């Protein structure tokens, strides 16, 4: 969400800190069930079952990687067949100009190369990760803290309810602030 937009709307957030992944897991699914607007959770390592707890579907990146692989395969075969059989056919050891079986290794390597690089590229672009990305990092979240962020955009947001929910799941501390990004 662009920052200007949130400033206009003056959206505030509440961040709850936990020190066990189980607490964050149960708190996240609890918050979702209680109708809070869960922005995101932050963890020092990927927590098993967190996608289900926050209601995140399967990533489509696997399909992108597959399509990129097909692209690499097509490019590899087209490059080899065109250069060897059409642009400048050379007789090498009496082999046919289109020596298809011999083109498999390079086509395979290009499949892997395209698939891997495009998957990574899309990952970085999709998460807007690059060298100069500046992002809000919650205290100790890359070390040993598990953080859940709730948005207070809704008029129905009730701090008392939220605190009660956090407390049920052994919260350590709670902070409030403007748009978290």
């Amino acid at each position, binding site marked *: 969400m662009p920052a200007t937009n949130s400033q206009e709307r003056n959206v505030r957030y509440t961040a709850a800190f936990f*020190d066990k992944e*189980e607490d964050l897991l149960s708190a996240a699914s609890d918050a979702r069930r209680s109708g809070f607007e869960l922005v*995101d*959770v*932050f*963890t*020092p*390592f*990927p*927590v098993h079952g*967190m*996608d289900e707890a926050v209601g995140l579907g399967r*990533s489509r*990146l*696997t399909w992108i*990687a597959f399509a990129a*692989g097909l692209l690499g395969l097509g490019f590899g075969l087209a490059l*080899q067949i065109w*250069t*060897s059989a059409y*642009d*400048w056919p*050379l007789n*090498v050891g009496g*082999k046919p100009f289109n*020596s298809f079986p011999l083109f498999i*290794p*390079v086509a395979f*390597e*290009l499949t*892997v190369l395209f*698939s*891997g*690089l495009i*998957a*990574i590229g899309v*990952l*970085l672009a*999709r*998460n*807007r*990760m*690059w060298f*100069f*990305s500046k992002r809000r*990092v919650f205290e*100790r*979240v*890359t*070390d*040993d803290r598990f953080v859940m962020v709730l948005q207070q955009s809704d008029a129905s947001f009730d701090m008392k309810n939220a*605190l009660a929910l956090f*407390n049920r799941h052994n*919260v350590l*501390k*709670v*902070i*409030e*602030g*403007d748009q978290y990004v």
Partner: protein
Amino acid sequence: MNVAIEHLKPRETHQAEHAVVSSLRKPLIAGNKSYQEVTDDICQLLEAKPGRGWWIVFSISFVLMVAGVAATAHTVMTGIGTWGLNKTIGWAFDITNFVFWIGIGHAGTFISAILFLFNQKWRTSINRSAEAMTLIAVMCAGIFPVIHMGRPWLFYWILPYPNDRGSLWVNFRSPLLWDFFAISTYFIISAVFWYLGLVPDLATVRDRVKSRFRRGFYGLLSLGWNGSNRTWSRYETVYLVLAALATPLVISVHSIVSFDFATSLIPGWHSTIFPPYFVAGAVFSGFAMVMTLMILVRWVMRLESYITLQHLENMCKVTLLTGSLVALAYFTEIFIGLYSGNPNELFVIVNRAGGPYAWAYWTMVTCNALFPQLFWFERVRTSVPAILVLSILINVGMWFERFVIIVTSLHRDFLPSSWAMYWPTITEVLIMAGSFGLFFTAFLLFLRIFPLISMNEVKGVLHYARHK
């Protein structure tokens, strides 16, 4: 502007709750660590000044590397005539070293990709440094074919780019060209796989270093990582995709390296057994190198809680399996030599075992087929000095395997009048020493700059086999 609302209630740590150990499985990380202790243990290695031991080893490696650079410069400026090659033996030390280093690299990918797909959680303590080893080993390997070309400044001619020579395209039917594609793809994919794994840990380092320079450095490299679950979710998907891509890739790389030999008509090379034989040998030698490095690293850096005896034992078992596959391949080669009825095939076998290079052949057989069989004994698998000695011997053996395959197959060819002997010149020995210098220099720099154990993955398996 953020305000802390309240500290709701003080809580004690959860140390005691994790202390009960499962009766069925052993924890992967010893010492009952908390998340914070993991961060501290690994980051402190980067924050402290390097000790005297590090400087001594670094200086030696650096000097070796410089010697290698000088010998390489001598080769490039004078020509391949500075090497001990002749008309009969056109490949020797250079290609031996090339295959040796590529093979070393394979263990890193095996640990980071194949063990990941098989959900082997013990890989988390060693995958980072094993992958770094892969990258450095592939760099060392890449040097040899390039300088072997004779005119290394034209190495880019191997790329299929439109040029003003026609365009004269590269010969896609040549395994040597496949090699170029395989190894550059392997290097690129391994590098991004390794870097992607590093990003969350670089963020951990960024968030705790004091100096501005370091914070800027790790800040740049950590790509704004903030541990968001959305990011983690996509990150894990791509990590899985890369592991699935790297698995067939690593098998293809050494298979293609073996095609360099197998597609020729030289007896001793022209064999369908080569691809699996080379892949097994590569994983075998790579694991031996990982064990050598890990034993030294855990000892010097006091990482016994992270790289436990269990890790070493598991690696010994992989080495035993792959070593036995290699032994089977040696046996099969002899059998086929006898069974084929081809006098040239038979001659290569007899010449290897009893000819002028018999000492190299028997070094190879002893180190690769016999010594690893000691890993059947649990006492050997759990004795650190024994593993260290055996892992070094395996690497010596695997270096000789490549030497034997290359030189003994070439030196007595179809015409007895062209039989010759090969001995390396001092230039070749220095280039080889230089590749070891480069390997250790780069590995020691890696230990100082990057977290050598994957903190985020170790934290994920920290409670493995501990009741909550």
